[in-house]
């Protein structure tokens, strides 16, 4: 038998390990006058290296809160999650070093240039300057950012900004990438660049958690998915499993799961 694994078997070997394990995540907010709002009641799932994991759900389902807890921006009020061996509650610094996170709430500094933004975050990740510049050059080639690396971010189009933002999330080459609706508001060209990048990233054996509303992206990208509604996971499995349970049409299947949700 050959010592080295074939690409397929390498991937299947990776799929054995779960790099993201969310267990019984719960988030309750204190409101005015002692009222409590529960955004996430009980969310558990696992994502493996080399797969794209889709997180679906209507607005207000608790997707963004879940992802924010994974990114350590929010501390769970119950349950926990472990990412690349780091606990979100016990070792948030380790978690942040292991992930790249992008959402509608992660903006770029308008008064800085993309190069300055990327250099800044590279330094915060503790990367040496020559490595940062090397990464910026590589990512600039991948996303076609050469033309606007030196322009101020407030002068960029939303497509350009999103490319810079994705570049920021993968600057330190993290094993886990969390993208919260990364293609929202983008034109078809910019969306495609991002979708292709996600596919490439998966091919390199990384784990990508991807939340979206666009069913086309789900079917193109996601190896497995979770449908979240009313703060709970209502479905967890592969696309064929979803179709088997709720129907052949993806959109209809999604709606069916929502209707049946508890």
């Amino acid at each position, binding site marked *: 038998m050959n010592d080295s694994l074939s690409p397929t078997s390498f991937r299947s070997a990776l799929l054995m390990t779960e790099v993201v394990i969310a267990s019984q995540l719960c988030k309750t907010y204190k409101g005015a006058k002692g009222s409590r709002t529960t955004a996430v009641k009980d969310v558990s799932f696992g994502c493996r290296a080399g797969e794209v994991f889709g997180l679906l759900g209507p607005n207000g389902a608790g997707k963004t809160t879940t992802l924010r807890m994974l990114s350590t921006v929010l501390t769970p009020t119950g349950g926990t999650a472990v990412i690349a061996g780091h606990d979100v509650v016990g070792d948030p610094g380790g978690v942040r070093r292991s992930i790249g996170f992008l959402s509608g709430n992660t903006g770029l500094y308008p008064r*800085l240039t993309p190069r300055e933004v990327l250099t800044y975050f590279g330094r915060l990740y503790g990367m040496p300057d020559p490595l940062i510049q090397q990464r910026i050059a590589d990512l600039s080639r991948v996303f076609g950012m050469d033309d606007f690396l030196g322009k101020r971010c407030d002068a960029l189009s939303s497509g350009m900004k999103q490319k810079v933002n994705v570049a920021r999330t993968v600057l330190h080459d993290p094993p886990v990438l969390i993208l919260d609706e990364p293609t929202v508001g983008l034109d078809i060209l910019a969306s495609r660049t991002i979708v292709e990048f996600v596919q490439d990233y998966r091919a390199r054996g990384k784990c990508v958690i991807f939340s979206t509303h666009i069913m086309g992206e789900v079917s193109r990208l996601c190896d497995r998915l979770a449908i979240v509604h009313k703060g709970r996971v209502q479905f967890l499995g592969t696309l064929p499993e979803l179709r088997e349970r709720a129907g052949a049409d993806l959109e209809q299947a999604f709606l069916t799961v929502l209707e049946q949700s508890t």
Partner: protein
Amino acid sequence: MKLSTVLIIARKEFRDVLRDRRTLLFMLLLPIAVMPVLLIGVSRFAMSQRTAKESRELTIAADPMGRNLLTSLANRWFTDNLLVLGVVSARLGVATAASIDELDELSARAETLKGGQSKKAPDGDTALLASYKAFQELTPEQVRFLGDASAISRLLKLTSWKTLDELPEPKDGKLAQGVSVPEDMPGKLGEPRVAAAITSKEKAVHAAIDVPVDALLERLDDEDIASSIKLTVLYDSSQSLSKEAYDRLETFIDALSRSEMRLRLAKQSLRPGFIEPYDLREANVASDSRKLQAVLGGLLPYLIILFSFFGAFYPSLDLTAGEKERFTLETLLLAPVSRLDIAAGKFLVVFTAAITAAVLTTTSMALTFRYGVLPEGASSALQLEFQPLALALAASLLVPVAALFAATLLGVALCARSFKEAQSYAAPLQFLIILPAVAAMMPDLETELRWAWVPLMNVSLLMKELLKGNYLWEFYTITLVSMLALAGLVLWIASRLFQRESVLLRT
């Protein structure tokens, strides 16, 4: 907390805020520009207003006969004082006036010499140098005489006369609100139209004078009549030009009195001491610079405190609420740095901005004085000299002040959802600051030890004392320690706020 991380954050935040126009305006431009504008602009304006008032032609109403008599008395003053006039003119290097109309030349020369008294004459102009010297050496009587000559000349040259009869009756017979005719007014001054003319919007006349003609003529005939002649001036003290008209008449009559008195004494072979049994001389130990420090000593701490606050204001809002608004705060929270590092980095930037603004204010003020682009006469008095130790101690007080402002503003602004909301939270803090900061400008407030416990007021008072060269060590120690403790407490609270996700993510 990791220092290298804090510095990476601070460096980026500096770059960021320095590209923000509002921050630049409040941190750099305003402190630099406001001092020269305030000091030069206001003092020039005030001086030009004064000159304009002094050289303005004013209208005085009198009976024709009374007015003629005043002119005659002025002429008599001129002939009575020819001798002194000759002496003083010669000393100041002016040709002796041939008639009373030429008196203003002497007055003008005296004004020039007075304004530039501590200035050096240009090289080679020995005549002018001699005049300066001569002016310094004039006797008090001669100086007083110069003042009298100016008063006489001013009233004659800068008055346009009206007769009391030509003043119109007030419209609808009423006087303006708050105006009343005083009781027992002699002659026509008791008629409401005189008061109405002085107070009318058109300012037909600035003042009116009643000259008792008969009594005066009688006295001119028989100089032995020693009773005082009552002259009455009706004016409106609430209007500056009317007040100026009164002042001119008063100095004019004073000049006449003084001259006549001298003659009478001479006639009786008496010396001036006969009617002036006591002569109080004023002798001030404070140099011009010291007097100025007393004034500026209060203003400077106030401005330093205020501008330090202004300097911290925009960057603190921009780096907290502004970042929430731009969605960049959450991006930073995702980096593998502790929230304490983030707070420290931001604090460092705002703290520096507060210090910078305060230092620039002081520097700009010092430069304005040094290169005295100030009106003539003022610049020489403004040679501020502060002791290095006093400056160092005053600067040390700036540290807790800037830290307090930076921590307070960061904490308050972090609680806001948007820049606008932060502004409405932070702006009222100005009033909290102005009140204690203004303490040093209250002339009667003594620097007692108990004030050392009042935040900011202690700094304001102590800076004033330091600039005067008073080293109050106990006061200084209490102030520094209590201010550092307060700044530390607020900083701790602010850093706690930076750890609370409900505050950080409130959008």
